[in-house]
């Protein structure tokens, strides 16, 4: 199983029936493909929809029904639409149970940087800052390391998305949480040892007595 699939499947296990869930672009988008059908989750698209469905069949796309990237989507029975003030009222007001976002860096205290690389990538934060400030649970779904460098760092060097710590980080190697503000290894990916995780983690990791393998 490739890293992205491991991440998406593991994150999907964090969702519960009735949850209102917002998925960011990139790896988070894949989570929707791994939610078991018996789990009734509401997916929000922050451009104004709850109840996003899969890509429409060939010839069925409507130009006024897209995801936040402008790509055609469909709407499930029971879907609803709203304006952007309501969409971010839902987000900032704590009505989104889980948001899953990509990350550039997460530090030892759970602070996330995911919107800007000064001098290089200045796209704007879009909805990311509101999601991290407001969603009930914030899950970061990302590769553990990129180009040989850990994305879990002692302290973020990139501009923060929020000073609020995230709830959980799920990577292709591990699941990490931040109880009492301290990065803690909760699970390892199949076939990955604790020592391997520690070796490619740029932050000090608390290691509990038992660290089970991810169920995916």
């Amino acid at each position, binding site marked *: 199983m490739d890293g992205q699939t491991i991440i998406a499947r593991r994150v999907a296990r964090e969702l519960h029936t009735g949850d209102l869930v917002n998925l960011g672009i990139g790896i988070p988008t894949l989570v929707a493909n791994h939610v078991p059908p018996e789990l009734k989750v509401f997916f929000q*698209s*922050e*451009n*104004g*929809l709850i109840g996003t469905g899969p890509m429409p069949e060939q010839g069925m796309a*409507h*130009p*006024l*029904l*897209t*995801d*936040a*990237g*402008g790509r055609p989507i469909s*709407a499930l029975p029971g879907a609803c*639409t*709203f*304006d*952007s*003030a309501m*969409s*971010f009222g839902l*987000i*900032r007001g704590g009505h989104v149970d889980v948001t899953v976002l990509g990350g550039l860096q997460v530090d030892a205290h759970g602070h996330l940087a995911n919107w800007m690389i000064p001098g290089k*990538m*200045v*796209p*704007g*934060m*879009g*909805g*990311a*800052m*509101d999601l991290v*400030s*407001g969603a009930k649970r914030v899950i970061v779904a990302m590769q553990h390391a990129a180009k040989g460098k850990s994305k879990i760092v002692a302290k973020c060097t990139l*501009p*923060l*998305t*929020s*000073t609020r710590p995230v709830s959980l980080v799920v990577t292709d190697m591990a699941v990490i949480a931040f109880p009492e503000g301290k990065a803690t290894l909760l699970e390892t990916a199949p076939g990955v040892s604790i020592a391997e995780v520690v070796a490619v983690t740029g932050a000090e990791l608390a290691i509990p007595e038992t660290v089970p393998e991810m169920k995916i």
Partner: protein
Amino acid sequence: MRAVSVEEAVAKIPAGASIMVGGFMGVGTPQRLLDEIVRQQKSRLSLISNDAAVPGKGVGKLFDATLVARLTASHIGLNPKAQQQMLANQIAVDLIPQGTFVERIRAGGCGLGGVLTPTGVGTSVAEGKRQIEVNGTTFLLETALRAQFALVHAFLADYLGNLTYALTARNFNPVMAMAADTVIVTAEHIVPVGVIAPDHVMTPAPLVDYLITNG
């Protein structure tokens, strides 16, 4: 409300005007108004729009034609032309969180001086802004945002100017329709009064100044 041609409506917008444009990545954007702005070469615009769309689409056309002098938006990452113009200092860009962006416009339309948001506290977004504590929590004071013109795209407009929007094309349109001195509307369909049920109207007719006629 007056029904006017797209040429007549855009002629009312001076060069250098501040314009809010509805839409999200080009979806729900008043394309005909943007095409006419390009044709009439309205330059030095101060654009307030969630994003810069992509080249050739929606507000992206304004960047293709280098008509924007100042941009207030939440995300421009998918339009390399807007990025280039920003990095070359041809455009002054104010990038703000999307929830703050819409809430500032709503405040402008609803007569509020601003709102207190937790979004951006402790980040670079907080620079230069007042921080206000309420019951032990720190918030940023984000002030109201208005424009001279709002360019709005509706799904249905009736002869009085009542508007509805469809699916994800609603986005910023009804909020912007409250926050500008002059509101100009294009609609996918213009319908008789009564076709839109009272409970389904999303922008009440008295908010609309100009409705662009068909053809």
